[in-house]
């Protein structure tokens, strides 16, 4: 396990807005911090230099705003870092696809599902959806056709 002091030093280097308490056995993350969206490139470069790889990248629709969630991890000694960033109403964030090639497709997917715009991404065409899709299916305001809902959850009251 990466020592506690090393973790602390790393967190300071990430210049977080907020450091969340995290219990690895419950949440699966060793470090969980929220940063400003404009700090993501700096953060990715720092973690790249330290030998982390991009494990996962996605966004969450919190209705009022969108939140990015990045996971970085190491191959040698697992040390999962969760980076969160609360996006502004324009839903814009810098791309990290030139730092981690793994981000290229994941950012495309995040763009088509949640409408997050990645500034500087070389190719933001639709990846899994049809080329002409003009909707963002993982946004909470997307209307799911009732026929694909599971029967029990048709009613508003689930009790």
């Amino acid at each position, binding site marked *: 396990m990466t020592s506690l002091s090393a973790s602390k030093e790393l967190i300071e280097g990430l210049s977080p807005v907020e450091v969340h308490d995290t219990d690895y056995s419950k949440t699966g993350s060793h470090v969980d911090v929220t940063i400003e969206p404009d700090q993501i490139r700096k953060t990715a470069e720092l973690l790249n230099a330290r030998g982390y790889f991009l494990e996962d990248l996605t966004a969450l629709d919190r209705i009022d705003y969108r939140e990015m969630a990045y996971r970085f991890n190491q191959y040698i000694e697992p040390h999962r870092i969760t980076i969160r960033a609360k996006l502004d109403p324009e839903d814009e964030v810098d791309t990290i696809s030139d730092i981690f090639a793994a981000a290229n497709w994941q950012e495309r997917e995040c763009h088509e599902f949640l409408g997050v715009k990645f500034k500087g991404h070389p190719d933001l065409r639709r990846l*899994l959806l049809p080329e002409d899709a003009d909707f963002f299916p*993982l946004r909470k305001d997307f209307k799911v056709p009732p026929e694909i809902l599971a029967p*029990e959850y048709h009613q508003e009251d689930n009790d």
Partner: protein
Amino acid sequence: MTDGNITSLETEQKISQGLTEQTFWLNMGPQHPATHGVLRVVLHLDGERVVEAEPVIGYIHRGHERMGETRGYAQFIPNNSRMDYLAGLIYNHAYCAAVEKLAGIDVPPRAEYIRCITSELNRLASHLLWLGAYLMDLGAFTPFLYIWEEREKINDILNHVTGSRLTYAYNRFGGVHKDVDDDFISWTRAYVKRQRKRFKMYNRLVTGNVIFQNRTVGVGAITPEQALNYGLTGPCLRACGVEYDIRKKEPYAVYSEVDFDIPTGSNGDAFDRYSVRLAEMEQSLRIIEQCLDRLPGGAYINDNVPQYLAPDSGDVFFAFESPRGETNIFMVSDGSRIPYRMHWKTPSYSNLSILAEIARGQFIADVVSIMGSFDLVIPEIDK
């Protein structure tokens, strides 16, 4: 071409007129036997050489993530085995483990052992299918038939205990839905014994074969730096010499209690990926044997799990080792009976994204060999 000097008069005339040789585009797929699913690769070719290869995915996107956000936790269980149809039980196991982590549900030890045994059997079935299909991609039909025989044995065993042969829904929150019996145990032991003998035959039939060696050694080599950049996991990563296996690094279920090794390669080429998977199958047999020896009695499911789960608000990130690499589940609960957000990051996704870089400058026939060695499962990529 009868003449040694093959520049024909016609070609010379064309060149003198200012017409040069051109590159061209070729669609491989979406319906192509070597893509094992609905994958399209747009190849930009210069003769037989690949200038650029662009995978086009999404042909069988079914929206699993959105489906997960419109139904209760238990109602999503049958979806798991439709994501990666070759490792349905492993996905099933992992989804239940992730929800158990989110909701704080205890699992009885017997259930954990049963999960490990069935998951490893499923891993063997997946690797066996890959082995047969890959060799068939390379033009060898005979091994396919021999290898299928073993896979059928696994399917019979799993059919006996889970009730299905491919799309399993065997795990439940807090355990498994049916206990294993003596038949299952004796059949599994017999299978392990038989499978060990068969590896010798596979090696004699395949590993030393000159054609197989020519098609795989040095083909599609990946360096550890490239692997890190693209976030590769699983056998594709281990073939580069990186020892990274979630079962060892972040053990779940009872993987921390059993003894096994992580096989690695050194060159990161198609042949190393083949060797790593073959060695991994032997490790799976070791895990199954140890789990069978230690299989404890007692309950196989936690009876106190409510029918409708409503975990407290929070999120959980769960990683597990599928036959193709590390799969991640990110689940967010807002305290209701329906997951607020469910995100899956699947290994073939990263493994395929490196194809564009690896295929550059290779022959078309080698692209088939490279793609086959990645062990792609398209429904898992398309979600």
